[in-house]
Structures are given as C-alpha cells and as structure tokens.
C-alpha cells in the first residue's frame, strides 16, 4: 500500500501523535496495522488523501528543517505538527493540512484505544495503561 518512504513518514507521524513513554507508542501498539487494514477497507476512499498529505508533510519538513519528517527529532516533529495543526505552513500543500491532520489523529486514536481485534491496542496494552479492565 505505502512504499518505503511513505511508511517511514507515516510511522514517524503516528508515533508523534501517540509517542512511546513507559507504554508503547502508536506503532509498537499496532496502529500502523490498524490503519493499513482500514485503508484497504472502510477507509479506502481516504488512501489517496493519506498519500498526498504524507508527501506534503515531508515537503513541509524539508522546507522547515531540510530533512524528511521521519529524520527529525521527536521534539522537532511535534513542533512542526503544532504549526500544521494551526495551518501555519511553509510548503505548498495540495490538501488542507489542518483538517486532514485532525482526521489522522482520530484514526490513530481508533487504532490505539479500540479493541485489539481491529489491529491496534496490541495485547490490550492501551486499556492496561488507562485502566479499562475486561472481566467477563
């Protein structure tokens, strides 16, 4: 679905939206798998927007930092996304940056916090983190 560069960018993005700390970040928890499954199914119509947005994000990173998004430090990525979220961008975006970022955040949360049957929340790790225990 995504080629190597896009995947690197996507994973860096997901781990900036839900970063690792003493609990796994988005990618380790399986959000990438969740998203791949969704983009091949319920969210198939969003795939091209994802591709465009990720390409624009890398262009933005190069305009701001001279590197791809994935090669920025976590702090630099978070700062860049804060600007993207408020629509303050340097590169020419071919998709509205802020609105689609909100959608990606939503998809990322779906993968992280919904049941692991959807591909994310691997081993119920997100539920353990927040204290949602399933007893029956």
């Amino acid at each position, binding site marked *: 679905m995504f080629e190597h560069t896009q995947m690197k960018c996507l994973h860096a993005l997901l781990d*900036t*939206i*839900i*970063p690792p*700390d003493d*609990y796994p970040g988005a990618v380790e928890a399986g959000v990438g798998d969740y998203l791949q499954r*969704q983009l091949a199914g*319920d969210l198939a119509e969003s795939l091209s927007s994802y591709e465009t947005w990720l390409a624009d994000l890398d262009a933005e990173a190069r305009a701001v930092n001279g590197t791809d998004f994935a090669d920025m430090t976590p702090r630099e990525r*978070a700062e860049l*996304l804060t600007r993207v979220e408020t629509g303050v961008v340097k590169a020419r975006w071919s998709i509205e940056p802020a609105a689609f970022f*909100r959608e990606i*955040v*939503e998809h*990322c*949360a*779906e993968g992280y*916090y*919904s*049941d692991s*049957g*959807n591909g994310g929340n691997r081993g119920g790790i*997100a*539920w353990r*983190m*927040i*204290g*949602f*225990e*399933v*007893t*029956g």
Partner: protein
Amino acid sequence: MSDYDAIVVGSGAGGGVAAAVLAEAGKSVLLLERGRNLSFEAVGRDHLRNQRMPVYGHNAGPDIDGNPRTIEADSFPILVGQALGDLRLLRPHEPGYQNNAACVGSGTRVYAGQAWRFMPQDFRMASEYGLPKGSSLADWPITYEDMAPYYEKVEWEIGICGDHRTMTHLPAYDRPYPMPALPLPHKSGIHKRGLESLGWQWLRVPRLINSVPYNDRPGCINCQHCVGYACPADAKNGSQNTTVPRALRSGNCTLRAEVMVERLDSSDGGRITGVTVIDAAGERQTYTADVLVLSCGAVETARLLLNSATRHEPTGIGNSGDQVGRNLQGHYYPGAAGLFPDVMFDGVGPGCSIATCEFNHGNDGIIGGGFLGDEDIVTPITLWKRFYPPDAPRWGIEAKRFMRDNFRRINDVTGPVQEIPSPEARVTVNPRVKDKYGIPVVHLSGKTHPETVRSARFMHERAKEWLLASGATKVWGKPPPRYLSGGQHQAGTCRMGEDSATSVVDPFCRVHSHDNLFIADGSPHVTNGGFNPVETIMALAWRTAENIVKRW
C-alpha cells in the same frame, strides 16, 4: 384456509411478545425477521462497529450495503451520507439513518435494557400542557391505569430488576420487581450523594437484566460490554432469550430469519390476506394468515404500510387520513460530562444505576422533560469520541498522559427527553431508490418540534448541575441543535387514537381500516415519554396480543 393463524413481522420487543402471547394461546404463528439469528460470538466486541458506536458499521444489522435510506439534507445538522440530487443517501451506520438493530431480537439483542414505565402524565400530554404551535401533541386514548397491569406482566414474565420503593414518581406498584436492583457501582454511589445534596429525587434504574438467576438463566456478571453488545452470561433479557423461545416452546410458532417482507397482500376486496417475502436466496414466497401483526419498528412498519398500497387504499394501508409515517419521534439525549478529582470507574457493569425523575414534568415553561441517569460503562474509544473535554490535548505525549490519568475520572450523566411530536417529522418512501431486495426505501424528512430542543437545553443545564453536585471540578458538553430524531427509540409513526382522520390505529393497536391488521412496536405511541420506551412497547404489545386472542 390460511397457512397460519397469525403472521408477526419483526422479532424485536413488540414482535416477540406478540408471537409468544398468540402462540401460547394456541394460535399457529409465523414469526418473520429480516435479520440473522446472531450468536454471542457473531455480535462480537468490536468497539468501532456496534450499536453504541457505529463508526464503520453495526454488529447486529442491518448490513451497511444494500439497505440505504434517503433524508432531506436539512433534516440533519451535519452533512451526512452521499449526495443524491437534493437528498442525502445514507447507509445504516451513518448519522441520521434512524437505525435499529436487524437480527432475531432486534434492538433487545444489544440494548441496555433500561426498563421504564411511562408516567401517568406521559399518556395525557395535550391535557397537561395544551397544544404547542405546529405540534401534533395529543393524549393517548388509554391511560397509565390501562397499562399498569401489562407493565407488571412484563416485569415478572420477561424479567426486570429494580427497587419499586424508589420509583416515587409513579403511582404505587401492586407488586415489587421480581429481582433486586443490580449492585451499585462506585460512581453511582457518588452520583446518588450528588442528587441527595441537591434535594432531587433518586431511584435505582430498573433493567431488563437478571440481577440474580431468573427464568432458568443466570444473573448478571457485571461485565463492561452491556449496552451495544450481546450478554456473555445470557442474563440480559431480550426477545431472543425470553419471548421468542416461549413462542417456539409452545410448538405453535415457526421462526424464519433472514426473510424480508416486501408487501402486505390483499384480496380483491382490500382485506389483508398475508405477506409476500423475499428470502436470503432472493426467492419470493407468499404466506397467508387470518391476522397480521406488524412489529418492524416505527420506521420500517410505516414503510411496509406505505409500500403495500392497493386499489382500495392507493396511498398505503391505513393511510386514508395521511397519517402513516408522520410524528416520528425518538429521544434527544442531552447530558454533560465532568472531570472528577477521584477515580469514578470501578469496572462494575453495566453501570447506569442511579437516576432522577425530578424533571420529567412540572418544569416552568417547559413541555414535559425527561429523566437523567448516570451512564453505562463507556469504552475507551467512545470516551475519546464523545466525552473527551474539548480543551484537552488530542495528540502528543500530553494527550496520551491525559487519557492515562483521566479515563477513570471522566464521567457523564444523560437521559432521554420527551419529544414534542411534529407532523412534519416524517417517514415516507422513496420510489426512486431501492434496497437490495428491490423494495423502495425509507425517505426521512422534517425535524423535531422546537419545543423538544428547548426541553433538551433545559435538561443539559440540569445535567451540569448534577455533575458539579457530585464533585466534578469541570463540566462540558453542548446543548443539541434541532434535527430529525428517531433512532433506537423510534416511535409515533402510526399513532393510536379513536379517529381515523387523525390516527392510524385504534386503542387496541388495530389499523382503523382493517379488522385483522395490528401493530406491536413503538409506532402507536402518541408520545414517547421521557424514558426508554422498551417496557412500554412490550407492555402495549402484550395488551394488543391478549385482545387479539380475546376477540378471536
């Protein structure tokens, strides 16, 4: 000679009761259900595809493909579905569709089972409040006293737990509930003290759940997946494990699932003789019966009547007064969420245990009102999508820490508002759009009456007061805008009355123009109370079916 004494269309709350009462009275019954007969595993626990949080689909039907409806673009406050000329084309999980589950048991397979009697005032809303401009508000032709024995029957025969002594907003019960109320979760105890500090009445929420073993099934195991899912202990009492098995055990009932009724069949003289159905393989069949009972829910029952027009009734069966499909009601659910200093969540399900009926009636300048209750356990993604504070971070390490620190501290209270009926809130059929069976689909139009929105705003404020009294340090939520309501509590589209010019069915839920056609679902409700309607649907179906037997 007909194939069956009676055909019941739909196996939800009303259809299950009708099938059981008729079959146990010795009538041969064909019970038809368009959905599947779903196992616990088939319903599953998908947090993104369930009746409570249908982000990408449903776990209990209908399938998202092949079952579209259309809606006027301005009937819903957000842009929904796909454009279709001036209309929007909706799939079942999309907002505005007014879905109810399609499976054996229908909504009762996956509901919360909140089991409320309507109040005496709920049956005489026009007398209590007058007629708001533009509304079709009316009294029911029957009273609480007519319904009370049937409420009691449902409580004992289907199985409801609760504490009748706390139901101080109602006339005294003749019999207590057959089972004690469910255990009180930690947060419900806190909300109870909040209500006490405000001086507001509180009660233990009655539920169609076995709190202890009852009717040969076990008691609730207090799991976290009640509303929106199937019960792992089979302790939640829906049609699929109560009335439908009773009907089948009588030996007089045949259940056929995955069968869609295309139309009601009529004789040359206009008498209803049976149904034409299409099964899962696409085969068309006809069944004849002496009596027909429609229990498809307020939206689909209206659709079936309108799609069954004859030479004698060219605008649809029972529709000579142009009333079929009008007055669609459901429930606005105003509420609010709050952040609490201490952990509220203890994982004890189902969760909604404490409520107040302080504001169902008698509110200055408000027509009716509703109850407010605490909430069933909210899954993490549902909290994220519905109850997350609007000013909290949504991404980055701060958002992750916020969820980690506060998932168990965020709690909400909410409740259904009595809707003020509007004749323009309406189900018709769209002959230009067909479902997978080739049957013209439902078209939805209009909006609820503005008085509903006023009541909802009033209740939203009360919800915030309650949360603050329970100790919330911060509360949030928005009062709802005006839109078309129906959904899982859908009602009103075939209203009950004495006069065929202003109603569709008589006080025993018989379609005025036919002596053998009855309705047993929410459609006959003239108004829908400020309560979950399922116990009223079941009680009314019991009364209707008993009367059918009595007059056979």
